[in-house]
């Protein structure tokens, strides 16, 4: 089943009087359960694409369909609802809540989603990412790789249909990077998690089902 589809997706920014075309007509289709890598030179629009499909931003034109539903023109409340229930995000820079413990960071999206058994579920997820013994630590007490694993646990909290990762290993050493990618593969293979991941590393890209190549705001065929 087609979980993400974009049609002639465009996004441009105005820098003073100059129009920067970050995306210039992107047509993609990603199947449920796929593990896809997005690659391409810096500035070709990878992050822009991910932000649009993740409903963090709105396109200048074109359409986005999630599970066949046109979500392009949803209002900001509905977009928030969608992000909460259907999306998980992992960014290059660690994006944890510094004032919350590891456990609370993972609990929080579930509290926001009014789930009841969020404590057990948070522990479960932290065990899954191998941090079951760090529940009460603050993010600042963890290594970069560990923080990124907490972020992944948090992104999975509400069982998202789609996991979006923008250079999740961009700030990590090789060993930690491999741990993260192994974790993604495990999630993808064992739980059928759909994952769209931006990466600059050909090795990491090679570990996915499919690579989508971007160049100058469009897809390279």
């Amino acid at each position, binding site marked *: 089943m087609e979980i993400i589809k974009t049609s002639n997706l465009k996004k441009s920014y105005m820098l003073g009087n100059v129009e920067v075309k970050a995306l210039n007509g992107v047509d993609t289709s990603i199947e449920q359960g796929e593990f896809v890598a997005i690659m391409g030179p810096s500035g070709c629009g990878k992050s822009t694409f991910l*932000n649009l499909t993740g409903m*963090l931003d709105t396109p200048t034109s074109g359409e986005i369909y999630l599970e066949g539903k046109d979500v392009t023109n949803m209002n900001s409340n509905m977009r*928030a609802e969608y*992000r909460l229930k259907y999306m998980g*995000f992992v960014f290059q*820079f660690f*994006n944890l809540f510094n*004032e919350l413990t590891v456990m609370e960071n993972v609990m929080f999206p579930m509290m*926001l989603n009014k789930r009841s058994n969020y404590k057990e579920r948070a522990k479960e997820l932290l065990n899954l990412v191998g941090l079951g013994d760090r529940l009460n630590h603050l993010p600042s007490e963890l290594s970069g790789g560990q923080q990124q694993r907490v972020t992944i646990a948090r992104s999975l909290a509400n069982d998202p249909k789609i996991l979006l990762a923008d250079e999740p290993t961009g700030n990590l050493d090789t060993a930690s990077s491999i741990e993260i990618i192994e974790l993604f593969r495990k999630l993808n293979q064992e739980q059928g998690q759909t994952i769209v991941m931006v990466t600059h590393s050909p090795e990491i890209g090679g570990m996915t089902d499919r690579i989508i190549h971007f160049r100058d705001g469009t897809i390279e065929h």
Partner: protein
Amino acid sequence: MSSVFFYARKDAKKNWKMFVFVIMAIAISTANIIIINGFMDGLTDGFLEKTMDTSSGHINIYPNEQDKYIEGLGIKEKKLDGLDGVVAYSPRITAGGTLHYKEKFKTIKILALDPSKENEVTILLSKIDSGKTLAANDRDGILISYRLADDLKVKIGDEATIVFENGKIRVFKIRGILHTGLAMDTNTIIINFEDASEQLNLFNKASIILVKLQDGTLSGQYKNKISGELGIQKIKEWEQEIESVLSSFKTFRDISNFMNAIGLFTGAVSVGIVLYINILHRRRQIGILKAIGMKDSQVLFVYILQAVFLGIIGILIGDALGYAGTKYLEAHPFPDPTLGSLGPRFHLSLIYDASLVTMLIIILAAAIPALMASRTNIIKAIWGE
């Protein structure tokens, strides 16, 4: 909702040092409002009380519109005597003139009254600093207000000359010094009613009659009754007299409200600024909040909630300080040469009003940074622009 509370609490905990400072600003502003308003109430109440005690009956009868004096005093007094519920009345004459002592003189207001009647209605004649008060049969004595005595340097027992507004001249003896804490302290002298009638040729006339009722709350009913039976056009209840006293305090009230507003503004601005700084520091965290699905309205609420929390603590502390301060100053008022003493008067509504107004202003002040936070652009916040 619980998640919003949860995050607001965690976020506030991280900032407690700045928040302590804000709480203090709110507390001081609240206490300030309570004490200043307490002083205003004390001042007004004191003035009202004195005015009622010395210068007004439950009902005051004035001359008809076109007349300078109430005519036919004798008949009117008889009718008042016949009215059930009228306990006492005191006719007064007011006139102008000058008071001469040695080579000095001053313009004066002459207040003439019958001490035996006046004492049934007011306590004016007991407001004596030194000397004796005016006796009923004392046809040579006068009371002189303390500032007038200071100005003319007259003492008890001295003889001074009054030139009445119609040019008649008479020498009187100073019996006592009057001190009421009211405007009449500047240049009033009190003489016997009969003396004034004689000098001003006012037989059977008065400038005002103060009427004391058995039950002051029935003044409205008696106003109509007296007005009808005595054929009087102009008659005022004590509530109306109070209103005119209160209106003379309007400027004072305006000034004190202005001072309160400045205090409030300081408190509110400090809340606004601290929240604003906090939000600037947390732009990225707010971006993440929104990215993982927190709605704009929920982000807004996180910060309003923090402001309400700061407000409640600050206001409670301010209430306690304001209560303690007002109570203390009520018990230990500042001595004041004119008023006797100047202190606040405590009333529970002082606390309600100050708390309510402060909370409203805090929420308004918080709304601006909270709205900013809720409108944070996710992409810009997360990518650190």
